[in-house]
């Protein structure tokens, strides 16, 4: 069907696409060419810019620069409706359907066949839905509501929608993440038949075995930029991984060597069915342990279970020799645990409140005298930490919501450090933060470790993991699949464990 020389003109072509959000650069050079009758893989680390590129294709975002042509003509989509009617279809990891409406209505919403008086022709719609499913070789009752359908079936409905739209370009953003083996096979069969009909498909996945099984071409992205495109037949997993991570990591984050002390946290046999299994590790004073892995591997869930926010079925967590009770974050805090969550805007900060209020939020009971807190006490405590962390706010009564991402993160850190913890868990500490502030957050973490704090750092960014961690624990699908010492940790070794790519070994 397809071959490595790609003689046909591309259906969709993106070149040098740029996109920034405020001070955060998401894409500097998004380049991609999709050809008819081809399944094209797009791979890259988390944050490489794949999703941004997809959203530009979908019309959700508008590019700041570069060229975007569809079948030879330049397009400027300002809405999803425009992108759709031009012949693109995007299938997201979590399908977006209307749960209350029937399968048929979901497929045809907004463009139902009509008869006289603009009345929807339900019979025709029903017949077309049936024939679509027959063509895809699946059995789904077109009259049932989509509520309660498996993710796999919901994706099939999205695909049916795309076919009925006669989409020329089909983008699948990590479609297999939530599928079982059989379901993946069915999806691939459908994808191949669509390819054979001459459509152009884009397949985004972290699973290299799937990329090699399904795709004929692969484009690699890194840090918002295009790296290379090659035919699958001409490349290897090693080559792809090398290009995905290949950059200078050592110079970015100078880590200060910290004296390693006694074991602070011991986790053993932590299990919650469906989330994580048999998680055992320990963290020593002064040590930074990174939990690496792909987004959705279960790292945040593990952290939340340790802190007592989420439940777990079996296993124990002890800190300084004391058992931390299940599901009791207040007790965990009293025992010296601190958790800086991933979504600081929602879980870590009261955006409408001042810097001082936020920074003292976790120690309000100790600051209070007879149940009252005076603002002078509050400010004194907050100033100590704000100065130490160099929070750039003109005054302590500045509203936190107006600060930059990096400074918000520092306020969250201040809030937790004020509780004087012996173990700090930071989840994606530098997500959405510009490069300069990133380095500052890293310096901070490093200094805290020197002072004897034990730190667990969850991060999806390889350079951060490699630069900061004394030890790397790689989590893959809810299990720790590798424990790598700082000396042995390389981008390749961590990436292999995270993607579980047996193909290469």
């Amino acid at each position, binding site marked *: 069907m397809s071959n490595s020389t790609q003689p046909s003109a591309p259906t969709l072509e993106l070149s040098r696409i740029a996109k920034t959000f405020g001070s955060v650069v998401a894409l500097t050079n998004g380049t991609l060419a999709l050809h008819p009758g081809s399944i094209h893989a797009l791979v890259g680390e988390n944050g490489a810019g794949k999703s941004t590129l997809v959203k530009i294709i979908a019309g959700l975002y508008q590019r700041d620069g570069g060229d975007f042509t569809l079948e030879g003509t330049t397009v400027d989509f300002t809405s999803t*409706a425009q992108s759709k009617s031009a012949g693109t279809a995007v299938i997201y990891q979590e399908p*977006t359907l*209307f*749960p*209350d409406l029937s399968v048929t209505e979901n497929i045809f919403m*907004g463009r139902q066949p009509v008869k006289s008086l603009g*009345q*929807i022709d339900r019979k025709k719609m029903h017949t077309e839905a049936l024939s679509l499913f027959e063509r895809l070789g699946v059995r789904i009752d077109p009259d049932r509501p989509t509520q*309660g*359908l498996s993710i796999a079936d919901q994706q099939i409905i999205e695909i049916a929608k795309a076919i009925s739209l006669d989409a020329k370009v089909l983008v699948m953003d990590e479609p297999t993440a939530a599928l079982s083996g059989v379901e993946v096979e069915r999806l691939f069969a459908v994808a191949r038949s669509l390819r054979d009909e001459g459509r152009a498909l884009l397949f985004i996945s972290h699973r290299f075995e799937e990329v090699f099984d399904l795709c004929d071409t692969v484009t690699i992205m890194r840090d918002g930029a295009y790296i290379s495109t090659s035919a699958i037949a001409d490349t290897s997993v090693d080559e792809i991984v090398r290009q995905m991570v290949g950059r200078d990591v050592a110079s970015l984050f100078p880590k200060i060597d910290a004296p390693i002390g006694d074991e602070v946290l011991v986790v053993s046999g932590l299990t919650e069915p469906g989330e994580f299994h048999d998680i055992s590790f320990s963290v020593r004073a002064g040590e930074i342990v990174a939990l690496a892995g792909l987004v959705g591997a279960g790292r945040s869930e593990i952290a939340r279970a340790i802190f007592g926010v989420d439940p777990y079925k079996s296993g124990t967590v002890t800190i300084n020799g004391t058992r931390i009770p299940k599901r009791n974050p207040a007790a965990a805090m009293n025992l010296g645990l601190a958790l800086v969550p991933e979504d600081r805007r929602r879980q870590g900060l009261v955006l409408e409140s001042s810097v001082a209020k936020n920074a003292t939020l976790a120690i309000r009971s100790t600051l209070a005298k007879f149940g009252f807190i005076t603002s002078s006490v509050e400010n004194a405590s907050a100033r100590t930490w704000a100065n130490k962390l160099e929070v750039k706010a003109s005054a302590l009564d500045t509203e936190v919501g107006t600060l930059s991402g990096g400074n918000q993160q520092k306020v969250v850190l201040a809030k937790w450090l004020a509780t004087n913890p012996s173990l700090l868990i930071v989840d994606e500490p530098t997500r959405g933060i510009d490069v300069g502030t990133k380095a500052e957050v890293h310096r901070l973490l490093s200094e805290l470790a020197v002072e004897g704090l034990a730190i667990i750092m969850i991060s999806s960014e390889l350079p951060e993991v490699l630069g900061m961690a004394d030890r790397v624990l790689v989590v893959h699908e809810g299990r720790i699949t590798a424990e790598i010492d700082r000396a042995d940790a390389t981008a390749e070794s961590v990436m292999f464990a995270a993607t579980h790519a047996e193909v290469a070994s």
Partner: protein
Amino acid sequence: MKMLSKLIKARETGIMIALVLVVVVATARNPTFLFSPDGFRDLLLTPSILLLLAVGQAIVIITRSVDLSVGSVLGLTAYLTGRLFIDLPGIPIIAVFLIGIVFGGLLGLINGALVAFAKVPALVITLGTLYAYRGINVLWTGSDRINGSDLPSAFLSLGTSSLFGIPWLTIIALVVLVAAGWFLRTQRAGRELYAIGSDPEAANLYGLKVTQRVLVAFIFSGALAGLAGVLYAARYGTVSSQAGVNLELQAVGAAVIGGVAIFGGSGTVWGAAIGAFLLLTINRALPILGVQDFWQRAVVGVLIIGAIVLDRVLAVRQSRKLLEMRDES
């Protein structure tokens, strides 16, 4: 056969059965409840104005919003109706109807625009306009009131007379109901209202015109409240600044009792209409059954809570059934 099983399973059927039961029991106690010209007329006439509000409310709730201002819109339009007849003697009745509908629609447009563009929840916006519209009404009306003698007799008779034994008010309400039901079921725009209420985020990704549709739903609700205001003036003849106070709560109650899910995406105007009938018919039946005034309000409360609990139970059962279907396949 399929039609029959669908009818039995329909959410509206349960409410209909409850309505019939209420009528049967009340009639058994006092036959004039149904079998007298006045009894039959009141049975149809009383809920007609609420029915219009409930239809508008249902459409707004289906899109996952709510319109709490309809009682105030009704009051303002009712007073406007009276003023039109007083200040413009000889104005055609049909013109008053049109002005009332357009005026209500404009007030709805204000609601819709605030909700759609300011991105503030409809609950807050329409709670605000509930007081704002009522305030304008009080300012305008003062201690004045429209009296029956101010209105043309042809207009007043519209509010009480019948065609083949069916009150005109009821006929108008039913025509609106049928049109709204037809629109929601067979038109693309109607189906999109359900889609928007079912998952607004997905509606956006589908490329549906979410803002525009929500705006139209509010204009529709306002226009129906405007129509209801004109009919209110025709039916009661007297309009003070307090006309229609608290009606919005009855309208929401009717929609909820009729099976319109408060989080949008499901329910029909038919259900809301039957809900309006049930709500007001129970109010009239309870005194006949010797239930004290205090308990009458409690019964309405029980009805609303019961309807929501029933909805939850049905939803849980439905999702469990769907999950089983998935495991079997």
